[in-house]
């Protein structure tokens, strides 16, 4: 039986879909059999970021309504042999066309065949959110270092704690070390202080991530990028490896500031 992990955030635009694509791909690179599930019905994006849009025939709603078999709707990512699949969302329906019970059935069926099911959750706390968490065993909350995103993440964590899901874990996305250093951006400690859940990754803000997404190639496929390494580390932490969180800045500084940094900013 596999594990279903829902990627959620509450607020829109913090990088749920990008993170889902990258965490899923990173797990596949580690040799796990992964299925990405896009639950953002009506506003699907995951297929675009994965570069699989032109191969979609059936979608999640078709499966829920019994118009096709589950395996017919799965889109195989040929770059990863038999490791990575996508269950796309429908673009023509809306979030009310699926209910949590149907989602649960679909996820349960996927868990028989896959090691990890990564569920990309829509923004908001309505039906789409309820659908996305219905079949999940674990949750990863994505936030950015902005007060509004942290506030929404806090709300989502409160809702997740009421659901029958393991304690949610946190990824801080798009952190910009220069802004944090100047005190113009929330730092990691401030965020973890408020949210008080386990932190499993910090992803630096990087233009390469956007470029890669636009080309339909998740950034983790580039082994040398900072953000890519961060996502790979998140995947390894999900697999249970213990990897220390790394420093944000890579430029070399004096020994004193290094020590100072060691106590303040981690990545």
């Amino acid at each position: 039986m596999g594990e279903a992990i829902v990627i959620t955030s509450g607020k829109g635009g913090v990088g749920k879909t990008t993170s889902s694509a990258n965490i899923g791909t990173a797990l596949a690179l580690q040799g796990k059999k992964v299925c990405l599930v896009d639950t953002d019905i009506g506003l699907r994006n995951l297929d675009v970021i994965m570069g699989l849009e032109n191969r979609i025939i059936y979608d999640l709603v078709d499966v829920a309504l019994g118009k096709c078999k589950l395996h017919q709707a799965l889109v195989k990512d040929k770059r990863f042999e038999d490791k990575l699949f996508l269950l796309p969302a429908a673009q023509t329906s809306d979030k009310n066309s699926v209910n949590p019970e149907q989602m649960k059935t679909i996820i349960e069926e996927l868990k028989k065949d896959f090691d990890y099911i990564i569920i990309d959750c829509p923004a908001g706390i309505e039906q789409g959110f309820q659908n996305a968490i219905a079949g999940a065993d674990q949750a990863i909350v994505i936030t950015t270092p902005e007060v509004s995103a942290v506030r929404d993440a806090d709300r989502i964590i409160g809702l997740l704690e009421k659901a029958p899901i393991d304690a949610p874990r946190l990824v801080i996305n798009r952190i910009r070390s220069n802004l944090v250093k100047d005190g113009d951006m929330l730092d990691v400690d401030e965020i973890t202080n408020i949210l008080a859940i386990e932190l499993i990754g910090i992803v630096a803000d990087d233009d390469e991530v956007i470029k890669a997404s636009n080309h339909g190639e998740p950034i983790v496929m580039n082994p040398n990028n900072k953000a890519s390494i961060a996502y790979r580390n998140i995947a390894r932490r999900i697999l249970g490896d213990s990897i220390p969180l790394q420093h944000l800045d890579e430029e070399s500084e004096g020994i004193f500031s290094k020590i100072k940094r060691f106590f303040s900013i981690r990545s």
Partner: protein
Amino acid sequence: MGNSQNVTIKGTKDGLLLRLDDTCSFSTLLKEIKETFTSHAHMYDAKHEVHIHVHSGNRFLTEEQIAQIQAVIDPNRNLIVDSVDSNVILKEEAERMIQENRMTLIHNVVRSGQLINISGDLLLIGDVNPGGMVMASGNVFILGKLKGIAHAGCLGDTSAVICASQMTPTQLRIGDLYRRSPDRDELPTEAECAYIDEKHDLIIDKLSVLKKIRPNLNRFAEGGILHG
């Protein structure tokens, strides 16, 4: 005096204490109260008022019975029944009292969008995050950071207090008084309390002032813990 062993009168500095036997029938009791006051009538026709405290021992008196006793002690003779007391109360009243005096302990982070509303005092171990809210009909004690909203005495008790390890709320509410958080230049370094002072202003102050302004917060003083 005759046969009035079911009713005893004792003089105190607050007036007369009327002790009623709790084993005889109520009608006997009423009769004897009447006799007691008739036989001593000459003592009570003075011009000044006499205050009477009735204690019924282990007998439960209904509202109606209390009214009957008051009617028997004739108010025309300047006799005023100040209080009717008893060792026993109704079960539902007792439960209500427990509810109101209970301290509820919650160990959790109150997150954005969450609301905790309890009757009695609240002891929260954990933070109240911005957007979260705690309400209690009694006092609110927070072992953690108060960054959201706290409402103490939410049923109107303006003597309720709010204490927090870090008092940086969005809003404070005590009774019917709502206040935006004070503008501070830096974070408070020690635990603080909030209360309503005699001018009906909401004040944030050091914890040590609580002992002076709300001495009744000590629950165990009479139980001996503080005496020991």
